[in-house]
């Protein structure tokens, strides 16, 4: 598979936002990497139902994601999707060579503070973003493909 986008979106495969990216990047498959969803066949079905036409959705644990990515030799365009930064962080720590990580949408929460008006992060999530940046991952803020990229280091 060819990973054309790795994205954090708390709201995952939600309608218009995802369809704008899948169209733009010709995505044929979305891998949702999430240890909880990987064991939730009901919500996996809901996400398949909601996916843009022609786009397959798979959910899998961090542990299964690395072999799944490495063993697939097809040229299919794939998007990796994470609900929060910790699964992306775990994937990198398990040995995946992630080059770019898009942060789209993270809602507010008890410990989260505003990074932009669409992205709220807790202190430990900000630490993970810094650490990923230090490891050479380009972590950037961008909601829609038509928005410009902003290096997260400029905002945290």
């Amino acid at each position, binding site marked *: 598979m060819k990973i054309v986008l790795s994205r954090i979106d*708390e*709201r*995952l*495969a*939600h*309608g*218009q936002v*995802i369809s704008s990216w899948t169209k733009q990047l010709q995505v044929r498959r979305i891998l949702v990497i999430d240890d909880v969803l990987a064991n939730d066949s*009901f*919500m996996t079905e*809901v*996400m398949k*139902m*909601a*996916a843009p036409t022609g786009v397959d959705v798979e959910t899998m644990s961090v542990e299964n994601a690395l072999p799944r990515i490495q063993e697939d030799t097809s040229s299919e365009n794939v998007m990796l999707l994470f609900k929060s930064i910790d699964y992306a962080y775990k994937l990198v720590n398990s040995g995946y060579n992630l080059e770019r990580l898009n942060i789209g949408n993270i*809602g*507010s*929460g*008890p410990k989260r503070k*505003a990074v932009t*008006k*669409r992205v*709220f992060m807790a202190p430990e999530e900000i630490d993970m973003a810094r650490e990923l940046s230090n490891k050479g991952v380009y972590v950037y803020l961008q909601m829609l493909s038509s928005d410009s990229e902003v290096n997260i280091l400029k905002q945290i």
Partner: protein
Amino acid sequence: MRILLLSHGSLAVELINTAKMILGEFEDVHAIELLEGADINQYEQYIRFEIDSSNEILILTDLLGGSPFITSCKIYNSLADNRKVRIVTGMNLPMILEVINVRENCTLDELAIVAYEFGKKGIVDFVRQIEKGETR
């Protein structure tokens, strides 16, 4: 029977205001907005409260795959008894007016069918309809 409208932004609230303009006052139709940067867990709690505090509830959401829909599905799957909940997505004004009008005389399952059918029936490509000679 409660009807709950869920939307991105204030669409759901305004649909109620518009429906009141056409039907006059009615009760037990609620709306929850999902605003930018919202706490998604808190949003889920608001929807749960609406479900817990009603005997039967028809949830109408704006967009297949949007967070209002996904969150509703998630709650539906977590309920001990989910027979009191139906979810229909793609809400529009014709659908809402009809379910408000007929809900007293329907079961929840029937009301979900009414929502689905009237939602679709309210969409007409006028010129194509005329050209096909189908005026009804």
